[in-house]
């Protein structure tokens, strides 16, 4: 059970890495989800919209075909916290120019110092936040 989860995570991660490689090799673009979303909101470039449609369709396909199970979402906090978290993610990824995919995969994969630092910081902030919300509050 434990081992199969690691393998699924590894396999899913490899698919995401392949996706990022294809987008950069063929289109010259960075597969950073927050950046693609922000760009789609600004200029509505068709490639961004299609990437996002594919993103939704890919996960839908995996869930429909039974390659993945729909999460229970039972651990999510109340709506005010979800709202705050969404705002922080939106503002933070614009300010810091990237999220888990852009900095964590594409930037780190290029050995970009900026992305390595950004990834270390958002991971640390995530660890600290979970520590505070799960163990202190």
């Amino acid at each position: 059970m434990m081992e199969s989860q690691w393998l699924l995570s590894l396999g899913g991660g490899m698919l995401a890495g392949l996706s990022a490689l294809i987008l950069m090799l063929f289109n010259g673009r960075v597969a950073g989800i927050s950046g693609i979303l922000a760009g789609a909101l600004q200029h509505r470039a068709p490639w961004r919209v299609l990437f996002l449609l594919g993103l939704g369709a890919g996960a839908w396909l995996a869930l429909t075909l039974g390659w993945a199970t729909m999460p229970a979402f039972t651990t999510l906090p109340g709506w005010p916290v979800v709202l705050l978290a969404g705002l922080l993610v939106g503002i933070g990824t614009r300010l810091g120019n990237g999220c888990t995919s852009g900095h964590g995969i594409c930037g780190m994969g290029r050995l970009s110092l900026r992305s390595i630092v950004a990834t270390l910081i958002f991971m640390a902030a995530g660890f600290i936040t979970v520590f505070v919300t799960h163990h202190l509050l």
Partner: protein
Amino acid sequence: MKLLTSLFAGLLFGLGMAISGMVDPARVTGFLDLAGAWDPSLAFVMGGALLVFMPGYFLLVKPRRQSVLGEPIVAVPTPRLDRRLIGGAALFGIGWGLVGICPGPALSLISSGQPMIMLFIAAMVAGILLFDRGLARVLVPARSKARQPHTA
């Protein structure tokens, strides 16, 4: 053609998000919970992605002057570690830790219609628009206002 590769790349990414378990907020907070019942398996998501992307980038992308389809390959920003990068990454990490959702998994789950996921996406879009349409002027000093290419 480049629209087709874009759609295909999106599809692969969405498959990866669902199969890897990144779409499950409980797994993500479990990964971030070092002091609790730490579940390290999601580290393999980034590991697996880098295992494919990194050699592919250095062997196939970096030697090229243009993409396979003749598009310019996006400029890599000059290595500058400023308060903007650090503050932004910290805010993002706090939001990520609060719920266990980041942009890729959130948008992957759009077809689920799950109310909290919809709320998260709406709030994230609001945050992006808030920043791009005003907050940027307040948070980013004029000096570094020169538009930085968005990494992600």
